[in-house]
């Protein structure tokens, strides 16, 4: 699926939620499906700076593509990571480098992802782009 299609899929999923609490529930459930993250990979150099939670991200080059795993002590953050991964994980590195962060606005989650947290997602994407270069 193309990146824009993934974004629309996720947008639809969240739009179907009747209220904010259900949106968060859906996001948390998406985080439950993340691949396991080994305890031994919870190293300082793999931490992505966040406001009130810890987030670790590990990436490998698989051929042309970037394969990532990540985790957080906060389940909502894990859910947001799952969303980012659905859009960007296992894609060619060039695609990741070319990804326009502004497209995330189409997810329609601005009202439940605070500016502070949006900055956190911004940091995450920046780290991913760095890893893809």
């Amino acid at each position: 699926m193309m990146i824009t299609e993934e974004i629309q899929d996720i947008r639809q999923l969240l739009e179907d939620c009747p209220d904010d609490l259900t949106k968060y529930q859906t996001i948390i459930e998406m985080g439950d499906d993340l691949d396991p993250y080994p305890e031994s990979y919870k190293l300082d150099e793999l931490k992505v700076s966040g406001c009130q939670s810890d987030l670790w991200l590990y990436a490998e080059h698989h051929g042309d593509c970037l394969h990532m795993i990540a985790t957080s002590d906060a389940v909502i953050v894990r859910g947001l990571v799952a969303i980012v991964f659905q859009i960007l994980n296992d894609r060619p590195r060039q695609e990741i480098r070319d990804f326009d962060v502004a497209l995330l606005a189409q997810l329609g989650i601005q009202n439940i992802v605070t500016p502070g947290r949006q900055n956190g997602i911004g940091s995450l994407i920046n780290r991913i782009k760095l890893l893809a270069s």
Partner: protein
Amino acid sequence: MNCRSDFAILTDSPDGTAYLDSAATSLTPDCVLEKVNRYYRYYNANIHRGIHNWAEKATVEYEAVRPIVGDFIQMGTTTVKDCEIVFSSGTTHGINLVANSFCADWDSDDQVIIGEAEHHANIVPWQQLRDRSGVKLQVVFLDEKGKIDLDHLEDLLKRGTKRSLVATSILPNVTGILQDWQQIGQLSRMYDATVLFDGAQSVPRIQTDVSVCDFLVFSGHKIYGPTGVGVLYARQGLLDDAPPYMGGGDMIKTVSFAETAFNIMPWRYEAGTQNIAGVIGLGRAIQWVQEQGIDNITAHEAMISDYAQEALKSVDRVSVFFPDSSKLGLIVFAVDNAQSSDVATLLNAQQVAVRSGYLCAEPILRNRLGRGVIRASFGCYTTTEEIDRLITALQKSLQTL
């Protein structure tokens, strides 16, 4: 206590938020907004400089706040003089001022003693002093009730250092447990230690009494006043000859390129253009508090704190920090198997506003709990209905987390 009608943010088209983060900043009553507005609307001039009408009025309004503050923080027969009130940008500024000016010539023969539950504002400046000048920094631990262990404090005071400064919070923002501050003051004095009290959380909630301390710091925005303004009370004689922390306009007597003579207290420590509107607003805020009656505020906040603590203790998976100690103004808790920012986010989705994380008090939380927490904190406008909303929202959140 019925002061909600004084707050347009609560009464005019309220957005339904149950605001339980007053320890971070309190809401501001309309009369304070009006007072600040009037400065900008009618006599928007600088102080201590011009001789025109607006400048004179601004100066009079600004200087009039000193005796308002002094009157508010004294008790009984103590009289606070105007020269003992220094306006600052807040508690943090006040502490940095003392660390840099009063302790300017301190060294490794001297010590600063702080408590285990201090806010970063009352930790970092002393660490910087230690790193700069070798001053010893000691930490007094809390007893099992969450109070400064007075025996431990006495041990540290006895240590035969040249000079000692005890700097501690009367009501820590991370425990909500009122300390035995008068005893701390008296004990410290017995050993000739200088005493600085962090009154950021206590001044808005209980009657202050500076007879037992030498320095007191607090912030305007936590006592129903504007942001960007605070007070350092400095007992006469302590800062009069110390090197000023900040240099610039107004803190001087005369300036030449060869040398400059510094001003007298309190202006010696008020360099540059102050937060004039903020100070004027602070004055009105303190008057508003006095109109409500500080003892009424204490009683109301004690009632709300007891109510909240009982209610929280009855929620499954919730652990209150120091559950057996009564709280004033704020309650800190954690939830088993739920991260604090997750809980706070879901509470926010139900329009309950609390604080989460390390509350600018990392040392005690990392040492004792190893994780972030949630804090619900109160003002004189907080109602039991708002606490009920917190509990309902918390229970709902814990169905997901």
